[in-house]
């Protein structure tokens, strides 16, 4: 069987599209971004609790008092765990994705319901969209649209489109044929048949599709978080990366609260907007009997007035309270408000150095934005020019694949920390194993397993092909492919039960300060020389921002400085990174001077 160059074809196709259709992608990107920014601004403007009240009144109107109370309690919880802004940007992301999805899905579904050919063509395409793993088209998505919310929204649309189309088609096809025939028999035009008969009767099914679209959208927010979508997805992704179970749970619960709210509200809205649904409600009411507090619903007018008043109050409060915080320190300085975007992978040294630079650059008058990304997305974003620089490139070994792919689009501003090292580690309570040599014949203690990370990571290849071979461990040990969070979770579990565990690890890593671990010595030097942690910028950055480029080239941190800063950030907790940096800088003023001499 000859090897079909399917992948190469796709590769070339993506390049071709990027080259020839960039105007289209730019247009889509600015349209989606504009929509997202608008909705996000509107949603996050009001005081959280008042806006929660607005949402609660909506729930009360549609589903009754209990639903209203629960909705308020849920959103109050989101606010109290300080995830309100994230929740609102996630909500905006989902809303934008839903609106765009429906704008495409409903007409497509109608078309498919009227033509067997269209239906037959669309079906496999929908299957493809729904089952193709999202990460596969996320990276091309970044190439086309750049990092940020757009590829996240596009991925959500691609994923959520199929049920929207299918439910619309199904709903229309399910309409009693005799009714359609009746409409035709009285001379109704096809267009009016659709509007007067088919759509109203298909509406309950279509609304079920809308509900599905929203739910699938919410399930995609985590993936959107990996490409810079931010919001609750970003929080979850970051929590996973740091094995921060608490934050993960908080962000997860917030997503669940949003999901349940949207599910119940759209479900009820589906019944309210369709005439058939209203008939069903009216009949249920007759059956239920007299009024009570629990099934009392404010009349639409009353509810609307209530919502408007609450919204106005909420909006007013937002004007006084919300905005305006950020702009204080930006005005003067050498930066003159020029914008800089720093991307980072949510690894400790990345977070520490990124927020250190954010603080320092803001003090110099730059407007700095930070974006949390997955490694592949980060490099793609840099190469595409949406990210100015990142401080966490492990070169030349660990990030070799990315470097090889994008070197021509990037500038290496040199290492600021190093050398790093790759190693196998065991907890210090594992006696008698101090060096890779000691592992021979010990496989029973570790169940013959080395807990690995992502199989794509550079060090995994090195471990399998070189390190195990040189120490004669091939066959005795099996390298378990997995993920960094998975490896860290396994380490945590084993550590708490004091079980022997053998993990792939690297320095610097917070695990060494959290757990008492031994790095296994490498007398044969099989791991090779360590990486340096480099700063990498997009091509042309040093020409555009010569001062920053020079500062970055001169940037150095010692192991002590980095570990201290990481510890400070760890203590301050999520969302307070920049405060932690300020505290640390006030104790280490010489670092700032060295970083950016004025």
């Amino acid at each position, binding site marked *: 069987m000859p090897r079909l160059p399917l992948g190469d074809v796709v590769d070339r196709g993506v390049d071709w599209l990027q080259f020839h259709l960039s105007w289209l992608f730019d247009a889509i990107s600015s349209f989606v971004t504009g929509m997202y920014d608008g909705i996000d601004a509107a949603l996050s403007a009001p005081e959280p609790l008042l806006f929660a009240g607005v949402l609660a009144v909506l729930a009360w109107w549609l589903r009754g008092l209990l639903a209203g109370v629960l909705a308020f309690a849920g959103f109050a919880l989101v606010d109290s765990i300080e995830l309100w802004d994230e929740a609102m940007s996630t909500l905006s992301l989902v809303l934008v994705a839903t609106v765009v999805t429906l704008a495409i899905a409903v007409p497509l579904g109608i078309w498919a319901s009227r033509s067997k050919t269209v239906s037959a063509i669309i079906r496999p395409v929908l299957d493809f969209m729904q089952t193709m793993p999202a990460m596969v088209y996320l990276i091309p998505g970044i190439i086309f649209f750049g990092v940020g919310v757009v590829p996240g929204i596009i991925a959500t649309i691609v994923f959520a489109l199929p049920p929207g189309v299918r439910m619309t088609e199904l709903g229309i096809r399910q309409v*009693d044929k*005799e*009714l359609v*025939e*009746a*409409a*035709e*028999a*009285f*001379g*109704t*035009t096809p267009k*009016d048949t659709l509007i007067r*008969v088919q759509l*109203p*009767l298909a509406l309950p099914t279509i609304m079920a599709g809308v509900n599905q679209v929203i739910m699938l959208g919410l399930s995609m927010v985590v993936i959107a978080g990996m490409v810079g979508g931010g919001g609750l997805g970003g929080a979850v992704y970051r929590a996973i990366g740091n094995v921060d179970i608490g934050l993960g749970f908080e962000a997860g619960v917030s997503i669940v609260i949003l999901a349940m709210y949207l599910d119940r509200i759209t479900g009820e809205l589906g019944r309210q907007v*369709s*005439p*058939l649904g209203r*008939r069903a409600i009216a*009949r249920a009411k007759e059956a239920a009997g007299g009024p009570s507090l629990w099934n009392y619903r404010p009349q639409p007018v009353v509810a609307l007035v209530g919502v408007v008043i609450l919204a106005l109050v909420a909006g007013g409060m937002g004007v006084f309270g919300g905005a305006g915080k950020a702009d204080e320190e930006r005005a003067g300085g050498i930066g003159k408000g020029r914008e800089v975007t720093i991307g980072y992978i949510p690894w400790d040294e990345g977070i520490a150095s990124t927020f250190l630079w954010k603080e320092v650059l803001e003090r110099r008058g730059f407007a700095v934005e930070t974006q949390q990304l997955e490694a592949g997305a980060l490099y793609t974003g840099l190469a595409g020019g949406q990210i100015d620089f990142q401080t966490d490139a492990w070169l030349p070994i660990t990030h070799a694949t990315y470097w090889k792919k994008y070197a021509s689009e990037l500038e290496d501003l040199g290492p600021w920390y190093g050398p790093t090292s790759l190693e196998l580690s065991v907890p210090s309570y594992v006696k008698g194993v101090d060096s890779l040599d000691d592992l021979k014949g010990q496989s029973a203690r570790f169940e013959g397993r080395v807990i690995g990370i992502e199989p794509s990571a550079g060090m995994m290849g090195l471990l399998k092909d070189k390190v195990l071979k040189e120490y004669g461990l091939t066959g005795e040990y099996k390298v378990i492919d997995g993920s960094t969070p998975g490896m860290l979770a396994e380490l945590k579990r084993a550590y708490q039960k004091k079980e022997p565990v053998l993990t792939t690890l690297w320095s610097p890593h917070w695990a060494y300060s959290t757990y008492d671990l031994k790095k296994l010595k490498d007398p044969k030097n099989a791991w090779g020389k360590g990486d340096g942690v480099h700063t990498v910028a997009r091509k042309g950055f040093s020409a555009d921002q010569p001062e920053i480029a020079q500062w970055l080239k001169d940037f150095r941190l010692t192991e002590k400085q980095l570990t201290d800063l990481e510890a400070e950030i760890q203590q301050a907790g999520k969302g307070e990174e920049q405060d932690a940096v300020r505290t640390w800088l006030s104790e280490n003023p010489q670092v700032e001077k060295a970083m950016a001499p004025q």
Partner: protein
Amino acid sequence: MIVSFQRREVYVSRLQSEHLYKVFGRRPDEAVRRLEEGADRAELRSDGTTAAVIDASFTVEPGQTFVVMGLSGSGKSTLLRMLNGLLAPTAGRVLFDGQDLTALSPRELRAVRSTKISMVFQHFALFPHRSVLDNAGYGLEVQGVSAPERRRRATEALELVGLAGWEDSWPDELSGGMQQRVGLARALATDADLLLMDESFSALDPLIRRDMQDQLLELQKTLKKTIVFITHDLNEAMRLGDQIAVMRDGRIVQLGTAEDILVTPADDYVASFTQDVDRSRVLTAGAIMADADSAYGMVTDSGRKLTCAKDVLAAAPITVMADAPIVGLFTPCSATDAPVAVVDDSGELTGVVPRSRLLAVLGEPMGSPEPAAKTASLSTPDADLDAREVARA
């Protein structure tokens, strides 16, 4: 001039079907050619084409009720849908109100459907998301009639079918019979001349069905619509139809009045249908009467000899008009040998129905093998057993 005037005269509000064919499947035109050459339905089916309607020709005069009768799959619903263009005929023409409907553009056809032809469906086909009033006014809405006018005419139509006061109800609140009345009101509201009714009463239970038939007959007395009514129930066909077409396997096998079909069925198939018909309600005195002369010379129970029309009228247990169903003649006839007198509008004797004739027409048409077979089966042991069971009971 005169010629064209006459042609038009022939068309006006009369419905004509000329050699209509409907073939589903591949190469329908070739199938029509083969059917014209005498191929039958089974031959075509083996090629994967289905001939639903084959060579259907008939004329419905204005104000007439034309019933198409047949079992399911006989093509009657397909035929009906070609009459208003919901299905395009494979061959043939439909002429209505001076127009060849098969030659119209889709837009023109829709205009005809919205103003001149309306339809009543088997399962009512009411729009569940519209109130009764909005359902009744649907056709008017399509015509673009203004809302107040629509309301007025829909209310009128509902009154006509006996649903005054139900305007603001919803279809799901009505019984089946009432729903079909809404369906009828919807069809009547547009003032269309031609009413197509597709098994409209089949889904109703027998008592309601009878009510609806009565109501339709009653409405028809004043409205005088041209109606094409589809049914699989011969009793219904005979009650409603001025003319009946019996369809089988896509072909019209007999076309005639109820009595034609009952008294002289075209073939065994039609005859077997008529077995279940209540002849006493379908046959009329006029259809079975003998000449008045035949009664002359008869001697009655009381010893009186009938010699003239006056004698016959005096002796007759009952005197009826020609269109009276014979069901009403049995009880009077049981009391006396004298024949029933049939008179015309002016009271002149036009014929007589003797008791013997009354009994003869109730039996099977001549030549039907069925009764003989039944008699034979009586002699089997099982039948004897049944008979004994019956006797004991």
